[in-house]
């Protein structure tokens, strides 16, 4: 039986298909029509709801996209929709009041989604500055207002504070207890032959996959969700793993071990402490809702030719731990990607851990190019990890996405760098060498020629960033208000 909290109500479902979405349940099943469908692929944010879940016993709320969030994955969670927002006195919530006061709605269709994203920001980051506001709104599209009044509303409500009086804060202990009572044990639900399995823990996951080696593994569903909503593909039996705390550990010791179920958002502290240079890159992956759902393991295991984290992870020297039953094997991440649509994952196997070497004094960078700065799949993405000693490059790992059928190392460019002087000329030569590494295709994201030019120029950018100088190398926003 599936159990979760929906606003004030406890929901118990004996029937639920693996491909049932939270959005359809809300709108059709419960007639909670404040949550809208704009795109059904997690890109517009009109369906944004807050999802509270226990992470190692602590209740964490995050905005997510209800359109690609599978209902089964909400087991043991608190789903909060716009209908739940009220002031203690029953009037408009402070976030809603700010939106009205700043004329931040026009057609209003995106508005509940913005309200929920801002609610999430206001609650989780009371000190958010302009950059944080913009980052929080990457997953919400508005076609009417030009966003200026929405940002003003965000600033106003953040300045006003008052989070402690919010009902989610006041009811935290009670909700935590109610959710805790729902945890534990494997959950299996189905609608007809559309079956969903939520393993009890990681060992149970291993056992379930031995039993169902061809099951669809669903972590954040930011990709698998579209298999259902866009391609109408069956995913049954689907094994949901997003709730498994055992896949969410990050251990930093001699190396860095990242559980495959760690979301982009959950990895932010690690990125900011260990690899601060790639923080901008990290925050250009998806929108906030997607980063709250999407996992590092899922981004690897789905084998996208672009990937957003794999080029960076390959450059950083990532290795994967793949587990089947109680057997584990470890491979270099670049070897996992065999060809377009083909990965080295055997039936019943799952990605359990991503291992990164510590950075030491390596120079690290990650770049991406897309038509739009944020929440846009890259046309070209690249990761750099360069070690220099005595003015000579002693080690070079450079990997690209969007340049081939898989994320891939740039062997010729690496060869041009390794052993060469750390100089402008060397990076210029690597920019030419990378032209031999890839034969990119042209598509709606970029032409082949543009991809080649970008690959070359990324080497120049890397050098300029390392060389310093008085000229800025990257676009940087004015501070704003």
């Amino acid at each position, binding site marked *: 039986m599936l159990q979760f909290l929906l606003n004030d109500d406890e929901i118990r479902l004996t029937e639920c298909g693996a491909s049932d979405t939270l959005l359809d349940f809300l709108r059709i099943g419960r007639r909670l029509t404040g949550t809208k469908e704009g795109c059904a692929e997690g890109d517009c944010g009109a369906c944004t709801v807050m999802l509270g879940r226990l992470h190692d016993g602590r209740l964490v709320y995050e905005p997510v996209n209800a359109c690609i969030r599978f209902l089964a994955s909400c087991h043991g969670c608190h789903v909060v929709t716009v209908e739940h927002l009220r002031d203690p006195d029953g009037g408009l919530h402070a976030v809603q009041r700010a939106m009205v006061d700043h004329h931040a709605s026009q057609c209003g269709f995106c508005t509940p989604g913005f309200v929920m994203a801002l609610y999430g920001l206001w609650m989780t980051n009371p000190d958010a500055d302009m950059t944080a*506001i913009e980052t929080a709104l990457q997953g919400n599209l508005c076609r009417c207002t030009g966003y200026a009044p929405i940002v003003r509303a965000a600033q106003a409500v953040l300045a006003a504070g008052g989070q402690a009086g919010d009902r989610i804060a006041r009811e935290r202990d009670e909700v935590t207890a109610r959710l805790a009572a729902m945890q534990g044990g494997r959950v299996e639900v189905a609608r007809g032959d559309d079956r969903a399995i939520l393993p009890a823990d990681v060992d149970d996951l291993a056992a379930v996959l031995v039993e169902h080696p061809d099951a669809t593994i669903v972590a954040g569903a930011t990709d698998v969700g579209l298999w259902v909503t866009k391609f109408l593909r069956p995913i049954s039996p689907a094994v949901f793993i997003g709730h498994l705390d055992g896949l969410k550990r990050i251990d930093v010791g001699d190396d860095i071990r990242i559980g495959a179920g760690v979301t982009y958002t959950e990895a932010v502290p690690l990125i900011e402490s260990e690899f601060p240079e790639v923080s901008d890159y990290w925050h250009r992956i998806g929108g906030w809702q997607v980063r709250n759902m999407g996992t590092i393991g899922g981004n690897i295991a789905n084998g996208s030719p672009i990937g957003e984290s794999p080029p960076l992870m390959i450059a950083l020297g990532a290795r994967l731990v793949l587990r089947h039953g109680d057997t584990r094997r470890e491979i270099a991440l670049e070897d996992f990607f065999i060809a377009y649509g083909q990965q080295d994952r055997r039936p019943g196997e799952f990605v359990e851990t991503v291992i990164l070497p510590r950075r030491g004094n390596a120079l690290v960078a990650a770049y991406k190019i897309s038509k739009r700065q944020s929440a846009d799949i890259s046309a070209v993405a690249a990761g750099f990890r360069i070690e220099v000693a005595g003015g000579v490059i002693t080690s070079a790992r450079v990997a690209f996405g969007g340049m081939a059928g898989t994320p891939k190392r740039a062997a010729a460019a690496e060869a041009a760098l390794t052993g060469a002087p750390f100089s402008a000329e060397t990076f210029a030569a690597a920019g030419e060498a990378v032209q031999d590494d890839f034969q990119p295709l042209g598509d709606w994201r970029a032409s082949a020629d543009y991809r080649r030019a970008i690959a070359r120029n990324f080497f120049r950018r890397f050098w300029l960033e390392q060389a310093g100088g008085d000229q800025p190398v990257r676009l940087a926003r004015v501070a704003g208000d």
Partner: protein
Amino acid sequence: MKDATDSIIRGGVHQSVPHDSATLHVTGRADYTDDIVEPTGTLHAYLGLSQVAHGRIREMDLDAVRAAPGVVGVLTAADLPGRNDVSPQGRNDDPILAEGEVRFWGQPVFAVIATTRDQARRAAALARIDYDPLPHLLDPIAARDGGADYVADPLTLTRGDADAALASAPRRIDGRFTIGGQDHFYLEGQIALAIPGERDEITIHVSTQHPTEVQHMVAHALGVPAAAVVVNMRRMGGGFGGKETQMNLFACVAAVAAKRWDRAVKLRPDRDDDMTATGKRHDFVVDYSVGFDDEGRILGVTGDYYARCGFSADLSQAVTDRALFHGDNAYFYPAVRLRSHPMRTNTVSNTAFRGFGGPQGVIVAERMVEDIAYALGRDPLAVRRANLYRDGDLTPYHQTVEDMILPRLLDDLEASSDYQRRRQAVLDWNARAQAGGGPIRRGIALTPVKFGISFTATHFNQAGALVHVYADGSIHLNHGGCEMGQGLHVKVAQVVADAFQVDLGLVHVTRTATDKVPNTSATAASSGTDLNGMAALDACQQIHARLVDFACAAKGLTPDQVRFEGGCVHMGGEAMQWSRFIETAYLARVHLSAAGFYRTPKIHWNRKTGQGRPFYYFAYGAAVTEVSVDTLTGEYLIERADILHDAGRSLNPAIDIGQVEGGYIQGVGWLTSEELWWDEAGRLRTHAPSTYKIPLAGDRPRIFNVALADWSENREMTIKRSKAVGEPPLMLGISAFQAIGMAVASVADYRENPRLDAPATPERVLMAVERLRR
């Protein structure tokens, strides 16, 4: 409670009042069509789309569709009881369901009706349709060269001898400018819910800017009189022109299915299907020539405007006409010849989109100014000023410009934005970057807009309204305009509140409905408030006159002794609360309801001669945008925008500023990140937000100073001397496009205009940088 002595009403005209639905919006309680409670047994339709750009249907095997779970039935063209056409021009070129031949990838071929939407959608995917492929032409130049015909009648605007002017001009520049289209990306997709009634009656709930057209289209499709069809529209989740004609097909399919199976039927396509199967802003390729003197004064202009119209006419004739009407933007051309070429292509039929061809005309004028400025090494702003219209000048369509305010507006904006100092700072920055090898360049541009207000089809410039005053003093307002977020309802309600001098809270605006106000025009062409505000005012004035008569009779007064003010009616020395007064009037059997009507005066247009006064007046504005461009990648940031816009005497400054801010960003999106990309097979591959990128919050300029020219007042007798504000601000985004161009030009020391095509994606920017550097 209101203080009876307070003489200023709350929410009268010229006040910044929130959108009437703001509270509903933020709480999720505003109902859109998909949120309406469905009647018991509602069925769901889904469309099957073609998968070739052009071909004859050889065989259509729908057995698997019919046999799929939950399916109730299937509709093909043969099953339509009435006319299989939704051409808004009555051209019979726009089938509801394709018959025999498909003319673009994504054309609806059949509909399947099932118990749930999911079932209908899954069933639609099971169709097997075989085609004999036919050659397809995708873009307007390929269409021209391939011998394609026009979808509609071309237009030529001529004044003077343009060829002679070009020949004798000291300087001449020829150019080609390719301008991309734009998807509306209304957040609420197309949707219709049809509910069958008794006999031939049917009720449609539909997200549309044009309920009357839905009424007629559904009547034709069903073969019933218009009087049998009622169309309701409470609000749209955005329209932008995309629901002026494009909803017709969905409404007709739902209606036919509803009558066929005698059940309510809802049709809501998935976003990908919506973007694939509905029209967009027209792409244009424009070949232009401009002759000018050494001072940058334009002497002659010719232009050929080739538009990607798609497979049918839809509104393309009027759209391409409006492109020519704006081929001058704000500049006087002493001699001119502009020709439109509405090309038929094997793509979705393009349609209305905010600006309606105007932006494509304006941006070409601005390109010519830019060309002249680069050729002469001058600030483009100086070239703009040298060519601005003066009152008394004739446009290429022989309308006399009588309300030119741009000189003052540009002066104000140039000063408030500190344009000259910032332009110098940008030049200095780029010089340092050039010297020091820095990859980041900057650009700044100030561009004006002059936009003609009125439907160019003169007969659309009419509107109706229905005002009821109930015995308790509350007021019920209906008018022919549709609310899509633009704040039309609150503005018209403010007019009504002002007319009776009561608080806005007393005025209730409800759904737009064809059985309340008939024969309405589309809510389009920025005309909503101008037309419906006046119609509502007319209705109010009729009731007002009856009330004055009543007061005079009851109190023995003359009309000048009766005054409505501050929620009271003042009769001689006596003041009576509005509600009390109305109750008294009701008891005295005063007729408290009226239908108002308005038609725009003065306008006329003869398309054959290309002469007339198609526009009642012009709306103006200008923007300064500053950008940074990364010349290693082509990426850019919009750092700052300063806008001064002319809304006349704004009915609601907060609402109007919202239109300006939103229009600007939408225009920026059109010219930067929003790219429509078809593959060689003719399939649109940017058909969802994952691939089609509209601006985000982080793409707006952080410094965003937007103001209305509060000194402006419409010289014509518009509603409270305001001006239309829906479309004109979109074209302010051109300043961002030109600023990017300047940053690119800096890598070659501004020796040439980089002539970016639109949209200026990072790819186009980088390729232009690399070309200039070679």
